[in-house]
């Protein structure tokens, strides 16, 4: 139906032109006092030409229309005016492709560079850590903590880059949740001991089918947040209620107006202390990974009371 309307629209200028031609002829017949039958003869003689012109116009119109539908911008098989437009379209398309390829190349170069850079920076970090280990002074615990902060920011950056190729990077296996949490806690030992924190890992001995390395990133980030935003002498609890893994702390909490925004990249809550290192990437990454692993995530918090992060484990948990 729409095609019919379009076809009619295309024919209108030609029909109008033809009618004007007839009118002009009629006017001259009148002017020169010729027989009126001449007009009729004129129409009888010229109408096939008119129809032919309209048909040619329709054909041209629908031919170019089809070419554009198939993104065929070759100019060899069209009329002159159409050639102009098609040529412009072709060069625009080329430009867009070039820009896109450039973007992809830049992105790949950047990924490669970041990977290389991270390997490089691990070297001075390792040196620092070993030197600090060697030198048993009271102040070096603070330095050790700083080394740990650098290391975790580094890992966060690399994770952020790596999420882009998530789907080709996933291997499922039975992961022991309790052991995984213990492992993460030991990684975060220095930060936690510094604040004299207690952690209760009340998880039962169950396994969950998921990708181990991505889950580890989620758990470690959530535990790191719990430690970061705990007060001195605070307590962190890890437990499993029905199919929900809960990580809770009794620290500074999150303001109500910040809660809806916490998963946004770069978002840092108002309740973050000035001297705490926050990049705003941690929860963004956690959320991205949870979505891809099909784990529901939900955060409850009361300012100055504490925060609980709930991970809904959809797959079956197997008791060991």
């Amino acid at each position, binding site marked *: 139906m729409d095609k019919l309307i379009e076809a009619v629209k295309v024919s209108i200028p030609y029909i109008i032109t033809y009618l004007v031609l007839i009118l002009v002829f009629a006017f001259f017949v009148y002017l020169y006092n010729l027989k009126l039958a001449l007009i009729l003869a004129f129409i009888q003689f010229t109408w096939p030409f008119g129809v032919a012109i309209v048909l040619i116009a329709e054909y041209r119109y629908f031919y170019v229309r089809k070419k554009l539908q198939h993104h065929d911008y070759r100019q060899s098989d069209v009329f002159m005016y159409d050639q102009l437009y098609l040529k412009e379209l072709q060069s625009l398309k080329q430009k867009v492709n070039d820009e896109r390829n450039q973007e992809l190349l830049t992105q790949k170069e950047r990924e490669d560079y970041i990977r290389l850079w991270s*390997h490089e920076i691990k070297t001075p970090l390792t040196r620092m850590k*070993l030197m600090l280990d060697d030198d048993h002074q009271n102040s070096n*615990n603070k330095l050790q903590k700083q080394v740990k902060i650098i290391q975790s920011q580094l890992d966060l950056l*690399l994770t952020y880059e790596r999420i882009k190729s998530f789907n080709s990077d996933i291997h499922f296996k039975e992961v022991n949740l309790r052991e995984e949490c213990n492992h993460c*806690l030991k990684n975060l030992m220095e930060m*936690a001991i510094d604040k004299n924190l207690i952690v209760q890992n009340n998880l039962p001995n169950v396994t969950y089918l998921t990708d181990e390395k991505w889950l580890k990133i989620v758990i470690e980030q959530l535990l790191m947040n719990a430690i970061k935003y705990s007060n001195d002498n605070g307590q962190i609890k890890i437990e499993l209620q029905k199919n929900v893994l809960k990580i809770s702390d009794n620290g500074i909490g999150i303001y109500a107006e910040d809660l809806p925004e916490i998963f946004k990249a770069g978002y840092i809550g108002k309740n973050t202390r000035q001297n705490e290192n926050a990049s705003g990437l941690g929860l963004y990454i956690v959320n991205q990974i949870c979505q891809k692993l099909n784990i529901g995530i939900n955060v409850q918090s009361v300012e100055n009371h504490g925060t609980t992060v709930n991970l809904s484990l959809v797959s079956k948990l197997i008791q060991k």
Partner: protein
Amino acid sequence: MTKIFVIEDDKAITGEIIQTLNKWNYNAKTVSDWQNIQTEVSKFQPDLITMDISLPTFDGFYWIEQIRQITNAPIIFLTAQSINNDGVRALAAGANDFIEKPFAMDYLIAKIQLLLKENPASSTSITVDDFQLNSLTNTVKHKDTSIRLTPTEAIILKILFRSPHEVVSKKKFIKFLWENDQFINENILEVNISRLRQKLSQLDDRKHIMTIRGKGYQWIN
């Protein structure tokens, strides 16, 4: 002396590792000719090898294969990032264990001791001054009397026994407890120390755990 071969190209890191290994009474050496690693390994005949993933020629994975052709000595692999599964790849290539950079020397030493089966922590019984601690059953025995300890108390006593008559800082206790999945803080440590003291007093009148103000705790006779 146990021989350890360190395959690492960063001089500062190599220096630190060898220095610490020597302190722990190992005979530690590093690569002098990167073109002939295999020859050096077969000449030195190490009891254990540590190897970094990034090396000047080829990478750690390649060298693991090469070295496995001439020795079965345990290999500890130093990886850059756990998310790359380098460690798992290393195990598949023939390494025995891996550790992620940056790492604490204590951790490396512990792994070395474990692989060489000389870890005192893996031995189940430690005896100091007539007191015998069994870390499997968590019991401590003195002159034919035994008493049961909680896992936390047993670990605390183990730490004291590992450096008898030396001061051990609170931080060291807490760190060691955390490494054994006891995620406690100072207050709980103090509570456990006093409970431990009470239990020990059932075995012997003399006080054995002394508080050194500002420094930590010490086992005395």
